[in-house]
């Protein structure tokens, strides 16, 4: 079993997904171990509490398991695909909540630096996270606030405009400028946007 797991660990995400399409539980387990932490962190940020985050991750990852055949390499990395499923399911769940109470929609500054990780695989992922945090750190607060409200809280652009007392056009403009600036950060570092 240990050797088998070692072999799985040598495979790239795209290869694991190809095995998951064939119903390979071992390949899925490795994908889970690589991406569950990011998925859960995103779910926790969106849902604001532990149980709802767990439910969201379970819902999203079983969708990954059952719908792996819909993954398309040209549309982005496996990680991006998995996180987009968590995000989309999270948006759906937030919008279907009877109460619009979202205690977590306070716009916080970018998350503080994570604790040093003992596992070097995490260190690698943390490097990517740090790149993203640096990119977000270049945004003016008013742009970051709107991106976070849109991405994490499930509010529509019109709702964000109402919430902040801004014209809808201003909200749209800040979304556009914010995304452009994130991409601009990576361009200025001569780096591709992480996939």
């Amino acid at each position: 079993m240990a050797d088998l797991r070692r072999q799985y660990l040598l495979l790239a995400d795209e290869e694991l997904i190809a095995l998951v399409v064939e119903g390979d539980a071992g390949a899925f387990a490795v994908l889970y171990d690589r991406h569950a932490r990011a998925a859960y962190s995103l779910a926790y940020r969106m849902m604001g509490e532990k149980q709802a985050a767990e439910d969201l991750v379970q819902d999203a990852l079983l969708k990954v398991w059952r719908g792996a055949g819909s993954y398309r390499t040209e549309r982005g990395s496996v990680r991006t695909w998995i996180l987009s499923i968590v995000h989309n399911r999270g948006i759906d769940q937030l919008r279907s909540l009877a109460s619009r109470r979202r205690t977590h929609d306070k716009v916080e500054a970018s998350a503080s630096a994570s604790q040093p990780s003992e596992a070097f695989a995490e260190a690698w992922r943390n490097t990517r996270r740090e790149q993203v945090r640096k990119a977000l750190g270049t945004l003016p607060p008013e742009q970051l606030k709107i991106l976070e409200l849109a991405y994490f809280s499930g509010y529509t652009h019109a709702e964000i405009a109402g919430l902040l007392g801004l014209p809808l056009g201003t909200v749209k403009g800040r979304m556009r400028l914010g995304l452009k600036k994130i991409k601009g950060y990576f361009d200025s570092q001569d780096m591709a946007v992480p996939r």
Partner: protein
Amino acid sequence: MSGIDHERFDELKDAYVLGALPEDERRELKEYLASHPERQAEIDELSNVAGLLALSPQEHEPPPELRRSIMSVVEAEARRPASGPRTWLAGIRELLSVRNLALGATALLVVGLFSWNMLLQGEVQDLQGQVENRQDPPGSRMVTLEGSEAAQRVQAEVMILDDDRAVLMAEDMPRLPENRAYQIWVIEGDVPRPSSLFAPQGASVAAVVEDPLDEADAIAVTVEPEGGSPQPTTDPMLIGKL
């Protein structure tokens, strides 16, 4: 027929990738995309940028029971359980056989890499000999690399000479799947820069690190497609802080 024109698409696309369109506008934009597939790449690129926000939250460790709960469903539905090595290997063979067409295209590149490797053999052997004979040149230093779960038995070190030449030496590297290679990454700050490729032919391997390490903070090794990757596509198998 979609009610969205090009101008409206440009106006809504940012909110779309952020998940901030109401359902009716989201549906309209999807219909527009279905009839204008030439704009899909634009959405994909923008989605990739928006998707970076998913990496920004403070990290939380998922509880172990979540893994157990998900895997119990997965195992129950699996056509190929995790305990089936033979079927798994067959699956890998199938996977690799699909790539046979690509092998022809990469063959020339492989030949080039092997030729390049031959030219470097002398240098590698010299450097390896210096280490084995404990004739470390003044100013040189050794950095031990840490192995991942898949490389727990690996013993790996990088010898860095005072003129910035470096060689990575490793014992017991896991056997590579077909058409894969190990790739060295020189990490400066947050940025992994692609460096040398190598494929061990036996238990020991030595590979020259092509790029200078004077500005580097860490060095890592990942498994990549045979011709290498511009950015890492797998987690590091070995990593060491310089």
